[in-house]
């Protein structure tokens, strides 16, 4: 039988809240004996997406963001629900990771990580909330193995 932890939580829309939440998810992943890499990649994506909402949605830092997530031996999934104005982070043009240094501009890398590391990413505006869902199956493709040599 698959082990899994399903959780629903809320955090204040303040960046200081994010590392605390991620530390808790990492601990839950360890308790459930899930592959560290899988949980670490989920946490990086949550860091990027939550901070995106915190930075761009114009929420007061007493507003809360809802996070529903599932850590399973077969994969991980999460849904971020925020009450900000409609904003689809997937609509932004992809970042050019092959551009030379002087042409590189900050921004867009967070969403690039999410698209690259997760198997599924979906945005939906429902009622007065943005909902972003991400998921990754265990052992699924999409990301280079952490120890893989640089190929370029």
């Amino acid at each position, binding site marked *: 039988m698959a082990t899994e932890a399903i959780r629903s939580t809320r955090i204040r829309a303040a960046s200081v809240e*994010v590392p605390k939440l991620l530390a808790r998810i990492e601990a839950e992943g360890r308790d459930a004996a899930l592959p560290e890499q899988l949980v*670490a990649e989920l946490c*990086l994506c949550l860091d*990027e997406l939550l*901070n995106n909402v915190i930075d761009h949605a114009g929420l007061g830092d007493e507003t809360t963001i809802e996070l529903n997530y599932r850590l399973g031996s077969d994969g991980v999934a999460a849904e971020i629900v925020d009450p900000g104005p409609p904003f689809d982070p997937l609509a932004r043009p992809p970042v050019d990771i092959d551009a030379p*240094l*002087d042409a*590189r501009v900050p921004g867009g890398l967070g969403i690039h990580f999410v698209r690259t590391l997760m198997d599924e990413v979906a945005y939906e505006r429902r009622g007065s909330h943005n909902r972003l869902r991400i998921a990754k199956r265990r052992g699924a493709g999409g990301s280079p193995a*952490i120890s893989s040599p*640089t190929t370029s």
Partner: protein
Amino acid sequence: MRIVEEPFGKGVVVKPIGRLDSTTAPAAEQTIRDALTRSGHRLLLDMAELDYVSSAGLRVVLAAAKQSTAANGRFIVCELRPQVRQVFELSGFTRIITIVDKRADAEL
């Protein structure tokens, strides 16, 4: 996060310790910018004790690389741990930033 800074070669080595994320990036950016200015833009960023970096941290690295290049200086990164290396690779930073294995391999 803590940042340790010491002279190295013709410049300076800066070693961030802990997590370089949205909460720690602003202070790190300021520290690195000041260190670049004081060192004639010759800076080695030693990541040996950096546990984690997000895109907010990469912004700091990109700004430092650009500042150094614009001043004809040297900017080198060393000792990337697995999570940091993965994020550098995903971002294409391994192609635009000079990366060496160890401190001893860096020449400022």
